[in-house]
């Protein structure tokens, strides 16, 4: 049991750091981040201009930004983004269905938990990218490979979280359900699922970035169409500005997905104590 970690602390930390005021700088919360970003961009430009890194491999910001603007106006980019997102969404969906179902069964039944635990504990740490060659042989270089890899990798966090969500249920709740002879369907949908949702939501958020990383990796390695493949093409063509612009796009995509997940989690769990605003 002790080998698994439950990762529920993250959203609270995020919230705490956002709310904490910065001492002695009333304008700081607005201006400091701008200054921070500007300083990093300036440093990037300087490092290249001074010649610390070779500009043929590491272009200055001033040339990457036009490339990025050009890229954003190009429908081809959005087609690639769409393909990447499609792999992410289908993979994550499969992971949610499998992970939640298995996790809840393991959480509810002690025999099943003990029967599946060694298998799960063995499969979970397998670096999912190790399955890339298998995916190529079994599914070819298309969407199926991406989806398989993303689903495999992102099932585990959801499964573990769902399991702990159920196992952390107050035993009194089970006792009350039993004494009131609550039917199985309402026990599942009115007590078990709502109690486990905060845990599952955290699992889904963790899995979302895992799924994206796996999709981009398989595009890079297998060459299935999407952002990763576009990066490979840019690299092969020596279009470094394009390559950097694509990495920025991938970063923005990752950031946006995470923001959407956080927001969805907060909205979905408005009723839950960990997300309720404290009223003093």
């Amino acid at each position: 049991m002790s080998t698994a970690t439950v990762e529920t602390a993250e959203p609270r930390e995020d919230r705490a750091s956002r709310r904490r005021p910065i001492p002695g700088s009333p304008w700081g919360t607005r201006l400091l981040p701008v200054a921070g970003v500007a300083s990093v961009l300036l440093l990037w430009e300087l490092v290249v201009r001074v010649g610390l890194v070779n500009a043929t491999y590491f272009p200055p910001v001033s040339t990457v930004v036009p490339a990025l603007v050009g890229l954003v106006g190009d429908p081809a980019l959005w087609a690639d983004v769409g393909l990447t997102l499609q792999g992410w969404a289908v993979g994550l969906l499969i992971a949610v269905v499998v992970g939640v179902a298995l996790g809840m069964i393991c959480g509810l039944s002690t025999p099943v938990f003990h029967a599946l635990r060694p298998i799960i504990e063995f499969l979970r740490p397998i670096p999912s990218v190790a399955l890339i060659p298998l995916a190529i042989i079994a599914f070819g270089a298309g969407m199926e490979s991406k989806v398989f890899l993303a689903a495999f990798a992102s099932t585990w966090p959801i499964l573990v979280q769902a399991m702990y969500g159920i196992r952390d249920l107050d035993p009194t709740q089970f006792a009350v359900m039993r004494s009131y002879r609550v039917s199985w369907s309402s026990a599942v949908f009115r007590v078990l699922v709502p109690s486990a949702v905060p845990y599952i939501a955290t699992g889904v958020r963790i899995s979302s970035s895992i799924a994206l990383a796996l999709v981009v990796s398989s595009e890079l390695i297998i060459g299935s169409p999407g952002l990763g493949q576009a990066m490979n093409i840019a690299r092969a063509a020596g279009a470094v500005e394009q390559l950097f612009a694509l990495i920025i796009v991938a970063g923005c995509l990752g950031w946006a997905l995470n923001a959407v997940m956080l927001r969805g989690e907060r909205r979905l769990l408005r009723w839950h104590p960990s997300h309720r605003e404290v009223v003093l």
Partner: protein
Amino acid sequence: MSNRWRFLELLVPTLVVATLWFLSLRSTIFYVPTGPDVVGAFSDAWLFDRIGSDLVPSFLRLVAGLAIGVSLGVVVGFVFGLSPRVAAAYHPVVEFARSVPAPAVLPVLVLMFGIGTVSQVALIAFGTLWPVLISTKDGVRSVDPLLVETSRSFGVSRATTVRSVIAPAATPQIVAGLRTALSLGIILMVISEMVGSSNGVGYFVIQSQRQFDMPGMWAGIVILGLIGYLLNLAFGLVERRVLAWHHGARAVAS
């Protein structure tokens, strides 16, 4: 855990492995080789021919990348944790950098450093830096202010406070970040070897696949699974030892 459960935990995996073994004997699917073939390929490659030529280089790159990523992450994380202004200034940059799927920077690293150890180590370092940085920052920030203020009112110097009060209190969170970094590091190690390398376990797996050597590919997948499993196990043991005081304190408190 009662004996009944322990029995179940041994029985079920044994049954599963046995079933797969016997099913595989009659396999007609090209990419599912028979169990004996995989065992044969495994012992040919990994007992112990390729340990020195592939496993050791993989492991050394992982260690080097983790060492760089983790030490950078801890140092910068402490700076961010101790100074809310610096943290606020660089928050967007860190948020962006950690959102970049780490394998995406591999093409750039390959262009800059060529195919080889340097770009592989750099990829592992880049990928593991962010989770460690963020968990260190959060750990340092969530230290009970009472502890810090107490040590200040006793006239303890800032350096000593950081070393003997803040660092130990932040350790559990930092360790949680290290755990993420470890599994991420293994993944990045494999990816970097699949894209550009002339040795390593990841290279062996993708090469076997390209030569349609299915038993070899499966043997490679098995050894990667074992690496992941054993490193996680080892991490758990070290963690329990390093954080024994923390678990002890929590057990007393609850």
